């Protein structure tokens, strides 16, 4: 069985090779060749992934009614101690396959879409090189067999995200956005790393399967050791979650995500909507056994942060006017949903939240990628990000319009689109765990429908474009991916997730709650109707509402001033006080001491130098005096 999976290594190697090739030869290759290299490599990887999924779910995966985790290969890369080794491997289990499918599918479509979107841009080849690097890193992350491999690729996706956000590197806003994204996630990764180190120290392994084997027995001894009121295991898992929260833009580490929209839109679609930002969810899901058995308290925190982020982002999304920022906050909100679902989930039979979370991750990838690519098509056509300057575009961009509408319906949870099914499961899981989560989830569902249709109406309806407008539909290389993703958004909800992806690999019986579904659809419809009333036609109603909310509206519009708080802490306190103090201290105290020693020596020597007068007679005095003193001393002893 091991040998039959050897081909999986090509899933990793091909995009990497494309990156190396495009990266080294970016100056020499013609644009078509460069994009062809990247696209062909990712298409082959996608094909292999689909084949792997097919083989796994129908043939090799199942043993005794349970989906098993299989290591396709696991090669030692760096040896710390006998038991602690970084290995590079390929783990095949339901969630890794699900993620592989998502990553390769969205990547392929985004790659193809980019041919049109990036046409004529400077650094076209570089763009494809970075995209290939990202795909490689993301797949490496997904199939990681151990924590450290995940950390390695975790960092690599971080850096590819950095490179792609800063793609327009001569634009200062893009540069600072990329820096911000990297540094914030890096800060979160510090937590992840510490978590890994703690876990591995007590568990004596990095391997996911070993750590979570026997329901986390390997690390359960950590539960006994406590530090500041929480068991070390909880601390470790909380730290690991910090890493996930940073990558997934959970409150309060979310500040980088809206700014990350400075990157080209395909990048936002691929990285900051469909794949990389859900890595945090994936991480928690990957370690779910350990969380569930070792630290339910941390899971509670995960749920709280997820729920809060979902609400927080949804509220902000209602006030933004930049089309990509609205989508960014919507992403954050949806990921908060997934996190919450994980947090409220139990194990085995109570594992609905887990399944729902993965399900939502899956469906979300399709419709959110679709939303971003649609937004990209719109921006490509009208050359602005501001939805106040759009309006009435439905006539000019028919395909974008239809696909965007489908995505909006999907994210709002209108049946039979994909989002309905996954969202319904999440809400059911939340309801089982606690009403407060359900309440938040329910509210967010309504808000989501509202702000998505606010976006939809403002872009495609509202006022009309000026008659002489030259806005036209994008080329087919961009619209075809839209159509494919729209199909995905319609049908992804029918995948029987309960049968495939569960906490313990066994089939989870999911039931359909008619009343819950009705309620969800109801609130979504309310949201849609409200936004229709506000935004379908030009009106001053939104303005008036905003005015009446006053300070609260402004606070929300300014994203609760989080950027400013962070800026204050970093610029003023850390750079302004600590760094400046150290720079001063080093130059004046430490170096000053050294210089003072040097000065003192010079001073003493200048004093002593006076003895070296050059006056022979003075020397003679000293010499004779010295001789006499020695003589007298001898004499004294001789006399005794």
């Amino acid at each position, binding site marked *: 069985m091991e040998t039959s999976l050897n081909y999986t290594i090509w899933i990793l190697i091909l995009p990497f090779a494309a990156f190396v090739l495009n990266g080294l030869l970016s100056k020499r290759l013609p644009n078509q060749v460069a994009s062809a290299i990247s696209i062909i490599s990712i298409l082959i990887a996608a094909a292999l992934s689909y084949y792997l999924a097919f083989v796994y779910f129908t043939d090799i995966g199942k043993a005794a009614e349970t989906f098993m985790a299989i290591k396709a290969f696991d090669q*030692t*890369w*760096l*040896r*710390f*101690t006998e038991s*602690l080794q*970084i290995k590079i491997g390929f783990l095949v289990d339901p969630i890794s396959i699900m993620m592989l499918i998502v990553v390769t599918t969205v990547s392929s479509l985004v790659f193809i879409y980019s041919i049109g979107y990036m046409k004529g841009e400077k650094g076209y080849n570089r763009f494809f090189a970075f995209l290939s690097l990202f795909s490689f890193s993301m797949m490496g992350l997904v199939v990681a067999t151990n924590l*450290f491999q995940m*950390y*390695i*690729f975790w*960092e*690599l996706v971080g*850096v590819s995200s*950095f490179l792609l956000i*800063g793609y327009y*590197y*001569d*634009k*200062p806003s893009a*540069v*600072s956005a990329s*820096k911000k994204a*990297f*540094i914030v996630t*890096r*800060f979160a990764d*510090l937590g992840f*790393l*510490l978590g890994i*180190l*703690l876990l*591995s*120290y007590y568990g004596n392994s990095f391997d996911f399967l070993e750590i979570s084997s026997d329901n986390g027995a390997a690390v359960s001894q950590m539960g006994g050791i406590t530090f500041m009121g929480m068991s070390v295991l909880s601390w470790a898992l909380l730290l690991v979650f910090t890493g996930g929260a940073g990558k997934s833009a959970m409150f309060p580490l979310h500040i980088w995500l809206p700014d990350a929209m400075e990157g080209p839109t395909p990048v936002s679609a691929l990285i900051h909507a469909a794949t990389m930002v859900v890595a945090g969810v994936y991480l928690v899901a990957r370690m779910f056994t350990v969380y569930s058995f070792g630290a339910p308290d941390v899971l509670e925190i995960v749920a709280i942060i997820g729920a809060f982020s979902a609400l927080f982002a949804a509220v902000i999304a209602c006030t933004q006017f930049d089309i990509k920022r609205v989508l960014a906050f919507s992403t954050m909100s949806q990921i908060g949903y997934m996190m919450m679902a994980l947090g409220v989930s139990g194990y085995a039979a109570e594992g609905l939240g887990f399944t729902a979370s993965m399900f939502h991750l899956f469906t979300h990838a399709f419709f959110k990628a679709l939303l971003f690519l649609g937004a990209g098509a719109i921006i490509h056509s009208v050359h602005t990000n501001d939805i106040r300057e759009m309006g009435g575009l439905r006539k000019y961009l028919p395909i974008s319009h239809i696909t965007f509408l489908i995505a909006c319906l999907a994210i709002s949870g209108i049946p039979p689109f994909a989002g309905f099914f996954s969202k319904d499961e999440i809400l059911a899981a939340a309801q089982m765990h606690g009403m407060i989560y359900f309440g938040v989830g329910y509210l967010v569902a309504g808000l989501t429908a509202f702000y998505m249709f606010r976006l939809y109406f403002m872009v495609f309806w509202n006022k009309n474009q000026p008659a002489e407008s030259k806005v036209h539909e994008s080329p087919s290389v961009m619209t075809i991916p839209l159509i494919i993703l729209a199909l995905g958004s319609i049908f992804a909800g029918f995948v029987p997730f309960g049968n495939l992806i569960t906490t313990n690999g066994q089939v989870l019986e999911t039931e359909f709650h008619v009343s819950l579904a009705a309620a969800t659809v109801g609130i979504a419809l309310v949201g849609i109707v409200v936004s229709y009333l506000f935004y379908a036609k030009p009106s001053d109603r939104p303005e008036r509402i905003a005015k009446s909310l006053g300070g609260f509206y402004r606070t929300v519009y300014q994203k609760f001033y989080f950027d400013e708080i962070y800026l204050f802490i*970093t610029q003023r306190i*850390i*750079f302004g006080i*600590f*760094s*400046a103090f*150290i*720079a001063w201290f*080093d130059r004046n105290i*430490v*170096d000053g*001491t*050294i*210089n003072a020693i*040097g000065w003192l020596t010079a001073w003493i020597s200048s004093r002593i130098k006076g003895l070296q007068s050059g006056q022979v007679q003075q020397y003679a005095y000293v010499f004779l005096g010295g001789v006499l003193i020695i003589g007298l001393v001898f004499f004294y002893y001789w006399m005794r």
Partner: protein
Amino acid sequence: MDILTLHIVVPVLTLVGISLVKGQNMTRWTAAVGMGLQLLLSVYLVFSYLDAKGISPETEVFFTRSIVWFESLNIRYDIGVDGIAVAMIMLTSIVIFTGVFASWELKNMYKEFFIALILLSAGVFGFFISQDLFLMFLFFELAVIPMYLLIGIWGSGPKEYAAMKLTLMLMGGSALLLVGILLLYFGAGALTGTPTFNLHELAAVDFPMEIQRWIFPLTFIGFGVIGALFPFHTWSPDGHSSAPTAVSMLHAGVLMKLGGYGCLKVAIYLVPEAALEMGWIFLILTGISVMYGALGVIKQTDLKYINAYSSVSHCGLVLFAILMFNQTAMNGAVLQMVSHGLMTALFFALIGMLYSRTGTRLVHEMGGLMKTLPFLSVAYVLAGLASLGLPGLSGFVAEMTIFVGAFQNSDLFHRVFTIIAISSIVVTAVYILRVVGALLLGPIKKEKFMNLKDATWYEKLATVTLLLCIVGIGLAPLWLSDMIMNSLESIINQLTGL
């Protein structure tokens, strides 16, 4: 002649060659050919070491040779290498090779410059092959003294001040070191009857605690000064910023590693009990170094100062790891020495190249260089990424090994300092990205930057050589890590008292 002695003979022959030839072109080509040979020799050494180790895995030191030098004082020309020394020799020959190309266009007294530079490298090679403390000290001094001339004559800015400060501080350190070495020598004489400088004979001597308590701080600080141990690091920013490019490369890339190597092979290997007892004091200092260097960078505006402080931070990590007293962390320390040596050499080379084009080293005066100097900029970004520990580049391997090793000490004191040290990676990311952002990205700041010329062939050669090594170690670290790990056995045995 044995392969190790050749490592000294080749630079010396190159020196002779340089002094015989005439003209800039001949001089630099002689230097390049000589150092190229040296590089090949080192590569050959690595392979023959791996071969020899494969045949007899139990042996610690290979290619040994012992020639009596001063019989009455029991000073011997004792040479030999273990995996650590092999790694360091490899690093040195890479850095000196690229350093020659980095000073390709030097106009002013080029002959003397190359002579001093290669003399310095000969000292470093000698240091790493020595198994005798006297010899080691001799080569140490040989490596330090040309530095004074190199900075004082070919430097820039307040070069006399910097050269004087650097030399005096390093000399101060080596004075302490000498006292420590003499204590070891006479201590061994008093305890066993024959005073000796030989490392392994000294290791076998069981010094009483009262002497060890003197020897350890003397040797550790003595080597620590050159390893930029807080608060003895202030020579580094001034020295590096005044030094010419190749000297900065060699100094930060290799000379600072003598400190770490010496601390490991002398301070800890020879007096393990005192090391275990007093290590915590120095652990605090190194912990401060790591964080202090990193935070100190943020406010700097001169590229060389930036790199000098970041070297303080990274070299602090080396000493920090050594003081963790376990095999993994020490392995990480050596890896970090290699990795930092490569990337800091690359940094200084690139800074020199940028400086020669833009005429400034101040970050805020540059901007948007990515547009006009794509090759150098990409190299700079890669060096930066290596420095902040991106997987796939050498920095990650070293740092992770250190952190995992450091985490094996589970008491609160070590934990706290480990976490402080780990936190430095975030600060590192901050300053690296700030510099990269200000320097390379964004719009082009000045009109005159519009028509700068990108790297010439020799600059490309230097850059690519270093980059290849960084990427090579980053992608396939296992052989290097294992090579070092196997050579740490004896030190660990000393520490655990086996």
